[in-house]
Every structure is written in structure tokens, then in C-alpha cells.
């Protein structure tokens, strides 16, 4: 298995595949319900002008999440 990083540490513009989502009380279930699952491909589109939150693209739509939420998600970057 290739090297993994936290979604919050993924560089802007990079694509990655979700490998793990840490379970918490609130945000992890909603992230999954929005379609962010182990195996989902995503692209980090940008950070907000002030650095947080992040915008990702997956399953053909755009989703925002805070860095604190993104740090629960482990991803495997795809080779560019």
C-alpha cells in the first residue's frame, strides 16, 4: 500500500483515494452520508481564502469541510 496522508495535508489540486475515516460522534457519519467513503476518489479543489475550510470534489459535486474534519480522513494520493 502506497503512502497515505491526512486529507487536511493533501496539496491543493491533488487527487486521492479515501483509505480510512476515523469514527467520531457527529461529523464522520454525515461525511459518509454525503458519499465520502473508503474507496471514494476525490480532488482537493482549494482552500478558502483564509486557509480553512477546504473544498473537495467527489462523485461529481463539490463539498466543503473544515480542516479539523478533514484530519479524520486518511487518503492515498494518486500519482499525478
Amino acid at each position, binding site marked *: 500500500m502506497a503512502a497515505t496522508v491526512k486529507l487536511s495535508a493533501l496539496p491543493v489540486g491533488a487527487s486521492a483515494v479515501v483509505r480510512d*475515516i476515523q*469514527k467520531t*460522534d*457527529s*461529523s*464522520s*457519519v*454525515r*461525511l*459518509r*452520508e*454525503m*458519499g465520502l*467513503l*473508503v474507496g471514494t476518489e476525490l480532488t482537493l*479543489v*482549494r482552500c*478558502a*481564502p*483564509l*486557509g*480553512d*475550510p477546504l*473544498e473537495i*470534489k467527489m*462523485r*461529481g*459535486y*463539490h*463539498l*466543503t*469541510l*473544515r480542516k*479539523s*474534519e478533514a484530519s479524520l480522513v486518511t487518503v492515498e494520493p494518486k500519482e499525478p
Partner: protein
Amino acid sequence: MIPTAARPPGVAKAPVYAIVGNPNCGKSTLFNALTGLKQKVGNYPGVTVEKKTGTLYSQHGQPITIIDLPGAYSLAARSPDEAVTRDVLLGRREDTAQPDRVLCIVDATNLERNLYLVHQVLDLGRPVILILNMMDLAAQAGISIRVARLSQMLGIPVIPCEAVNGKGIIELKLAISRHDLPLSRHAWDIPAPIAPAVAELQASLVSNGGKAPLIARAEALLLLTDQDSVRVAGSAPLDAKTQEILRSWQSRWEAQGVDWAGTLVSSRYEAIGRLASEVAQSAKPSAQTLSDRIDAVVIHPLWGWVVLALVMTLLFFSIFKFAQAPMDWIGDGNAALAGWIRGLMPDGDLRNLLTDGVIGGVGTIVTFLPQILILFFFIGLLESTGYMARAAFIMDRLMGHVGLNGKSFIPLLSSYACAIPGIMATRTIEDPKDRLVTILVAPLMSCSARLPVYLLMIAALFPGPTYPIAAKVGIMVLMYALGTIGAFGFAWLFKRTLLRGKPPLMIMELPPYRLPRIKDVLLQMTERAGLFLKNAGTVILAISIVLWLLAAYPKSPAGATATEQLAHSFAGRAGHLLEPVIKPIGFDWHIGIGLISSFAAREVFVSTMGVVFSAESGGEDTTSLRHALNAARWPDGRVLFTPLVCITLMVFYVFAMQCMSTIAVVRRETNSWRWPLFQTAYMTGAAWIICFIVYQSGTALGF
């Protein structure tokens, strides 16, 4: 499965439909297209979620009721909106009958995520019609959907549609008119470690909760995804036995390290993935869309701020530019109406009650209606184009400093014009505590009704043209800044003490930009303004009459002037009574009367001062009033309106809660008198304390 399960036995009338879908999938447009103007808008009792029902005529001319449920991503609810959708579909609400059939609308450009909610709805065992909206946009994006195959796989009618252009509406009406809608034959396997728990919960819900088997199964599945078993008002609480079963399974799984909720969500998405890969094909790999190109500017680290500033400037410019003329007409209309009544009725208390109390009080509020309408229009426009989500995205970090999230930004900003639309716009904030904090601090943003007071005080502060304009502008900016700092300070305080909660999530969809449908935006604007007038109207009328009584009674001897009458009245006496309280902040009883009358609306202070100091009021021109203020003295001959008192008075108006319409709206939006009373107390208390500090330290420093 028996298709007749669609209609409860003994009910012969036409089935009731509910429209369900994700936010931003065109649900409102479809609802408007189906029902035209035959809509009823209200509130679900106990929660401030809009309840919309409409009537559609079937092919055979039979009226069919359609309930437009709030947009939801999942039935495992996160917000009051989603909770209403869940509870209505599960038949948990006593005020709304469980819909017999469900219209599921999905955005065809984003099939997988939209089908998640549909998948949950299919579990309910009601006949479902699936509407694939935005087929044109999907085609543009290179997505082709095999509609017939999807219909075959799910076993339900699937209607492709473009609600914006009215395409597919006839086909949909035909499907709705059908008597024999089939139940879905889609089946998915509940993952093995969870299946026994679902069966056990289902059995318990049937025997202890009295639920129908299919509803019980859907409830059981939701209980396992829904982390928060707190039920919103109007929902029946979970029975104790089922709760116990749920808890024992959860602790067993926790010990074994089974992520039950995650497993359930994943297995649903797996089933959806199999469906989607069979029916949908994406021709081109996702290229840069128009939305992506717009976002490259709109959320740009530099241009993003420029765009935000432009949009906000445009908003405030239109409010001040376009609201003035209709506000003047309404003012003139009120005056004409009062004059007409004066000509019609003999002089007396009843006449004065009508002209001064009812028309004067309610008229003041109605005068603000143009502003409120423009704000509602803009908020609707920002929502329907998709810019609202971008503004929240940009501002989230800043709002995060005080514990709120980006969604509080637009409501707070709107409150600079008027707190009423701002407070009503907090409905988009999902977390109830965040929403409440936003409501509590919104009236601290200096609204336009404070402007006349600021202007009058600045005029009294700098009499004559010799003073530099920069000083006047500087004072004005200072007042706006003070209100803003106050709002953020109190938000920070409330989030840490009274309404401590989890840090708000910012898991939010950035929907593609869409051209707004002006018709829909206008419809929404009138509905919201109507709701405001209906809900706040009675409170406003009652307080107007009380304020009038206070100023009109007891009667002075005949021949008294207006000034003498006011001084003699309850309001005048209240001003005197108030004097010991407000003397430490430099105000006398004259100002006390002004503070009391401001309760109708802050700008009333100006006209009350005119009566109190018997100055000729000349509409816009306050020169004579300014002279009267500058000439006012304490009984011992000291000047009343010293520069320090002018400043203190402005500071008082920044913080104090003196707006009955806001109180009425907060009562409505929070569903109790507790919060508006708390808000009035904390704001007015803070105003007094801050004014005390300002005035006493100013006096000590020799001002």
C-alpha cells in the same frame, strides 16, 4: 408485497403526495410548476420550519394534495429541517398526516449522492415516483442515463424532467394520476453483523411502539444511523424497550469495534453504486465546468473578497436607493389614511386611538416593509444562484473565531439593514444552538432604524457647518463598529457559556451556479414577508396600542399643548420614574420618554423628542429640533445634551433592544417568550452598563 398498502383502508379520498429531495435539486421549482399559485405556506407547529402544501389537479380533475418537504440529504436528520422531513415521512408528526405516496426528485448531474435519500425513502414501503431533474444539464455534462433501465431495476416509474423549462411535467402529472402505483422491488441486503439488530429493533417497534412493519424497519435502520436520539418537538419519543435494545446493541458493537453506522451507509452506497454503474454513463471525464470557472474568481484569495464586497455593496445600495421612494409613499399613505379618518370621525379618544395608536404604530413598521422585501429578495437571490454557500465558505474562518460557522454571516450582515429578515434568514443554520446565538446577537448590528437617531445626535454634537465632515463620519463608523464588536463579543460569550455546544460542522455542498428564477424568488419573498406580517402583526398591534395608551392617558386639562399632555401622561410619568435609573448615564426624564417610545421602532425617538421639546418637526429637516436639543437644560441650568451625553445616547441605541417587531419575530422563530425576553434584558442591561462606563469615565475626565 401488496400494492394496496398505498392507501390506508377506509380512506377513499385522493392520495396525499410528499415531495422529497436534496437541497438544490430543483424541488421548489418543481413544486411551483406542479401547483402553480395554489399553495399554502405556514409553519410546522413547535419548530420553525416552513410548511408548504399545494393542490394539483389529476387527469380526471381530482384535487391531489402535495406536501413540499424541506430539502434533506438523509433521513438521519442533522437539522430541524431534515427532522421534519424524516418525521412526516415516518408518520411521527401529529399535525401532518403520513403521505401516502412520495415524489423523489433527484439532480441527474449528481445521481449517486441524490439516490442515497431515495434509497432510504424506498425502505418506507410507500409507492415512489422518481423524478430525474436537470436532464439537460446532465446531458451537457456528458452524463447519459438509461431511464427505462433504472425504472426496471427499481420497479417504480422514473420520469426525466427539466422543471425549470416545464419539460416532463405532463408526464409526471400522468404518473401522479395513476391509481395503481407499484411498490419498489428494489432489495438490498442489510450487512450481516447488523441484520439481527435491525430485526430485533423492528420487532420491538412493532410490538411496543405500535408501528407498521415496514415503517418499523425503516425506523430501526434510522436509529442505527442517527447518532442523536433526541427528538424534535412534535415527534413521539422512542419507547423504553426499544431504547434498551438499541443501547445494548451499541455497547456490544462498541466492544467488538464494529462501526455500525458507517457499515450501513457504506452498504447503501454499494447498492447505489451498482445501480448507477448500470444506468449512468459519463462520456467525458469531468472537465472544467462553468461553475468551476466562476469559482476560480469568486473564491479567489484576492478576487473573492472583491466580489463579496461588491455583492454586499450592491445589496445595501439597493436597499437605500430603492426602498426610500416606497417608504415615503407608505409614510404619505399612512398620513393620508389618518387624515381621512380624522375627517370621518368626531374628535375623541377612539379617533386618536386609530390615527395615532394603530396607524402611527403599525404604520411605522409597515414603512420598513420595502426594506424588508428588498432584503428577502436579495437573500432569495443569493440562495437560488448558489452564492450564499460561497459567502459562507469564505467567511467561515472568521465566524469560527467566535464559535459560529460561515452560515451565520449573511443573517448578521442583513441585520445591518434590518434584523427581521436577518433573523428569519437564520433558518438555513442547521445547528439549533448556533442558530439561537445568531438570533440573539443579530439585533446588535446597527440597523437602518438607528440611523435617524445617530444623525440627530451627530447634528446636536456638531451644531453648524464649521465642524469637519470627517468627525461626523468617524462617529458614525464608530457606532457601527461598536455594534459589530458587541455582536461578535456576545456570540463568543454565549457559545462559551449559555449555549455551549459542539464546534459547528462545515460539511456543506457548494452547489453549481444556477440562473435564478425571478418568479420563484419573488414568490418566496412575498411568502416570507407575509409570514412576518402574519406572525408579528398581532404583537406589533398590541404594543402599538399600549404605547398609545401610555402617551394619551391620563388626560390633561383642556387646552394643554401636546408637550404638556405628554409630560402629564403615563409615558411622561414613566419618564420621571425612569429618571433615577438613567441619571447615572446622563439622561433626564425627557430622554426617558424617548427611550420608552422608541420601543415601537428606534427612529420614533426623533419624533418623540420633537413633541417633548415642542419643536416644529419638519420631516427630514431636524434643524429646529437640533436647536431645541441644544437649548435643553437640567433644572439646575446645566446643559442637557452635552457632547458626552450625545455620545452616550448613541451608545445606548447601539446596544439596547428597542424594537417590538424584532421581539415579535424572535418569539416566533424561537417558539417561546423566554429568548426574546432574555435578549431584551441582556441587550438593554449591556447598554446601561456600557453607557454608565462611558458617561462616568467621561465625566471624571472632565468632558
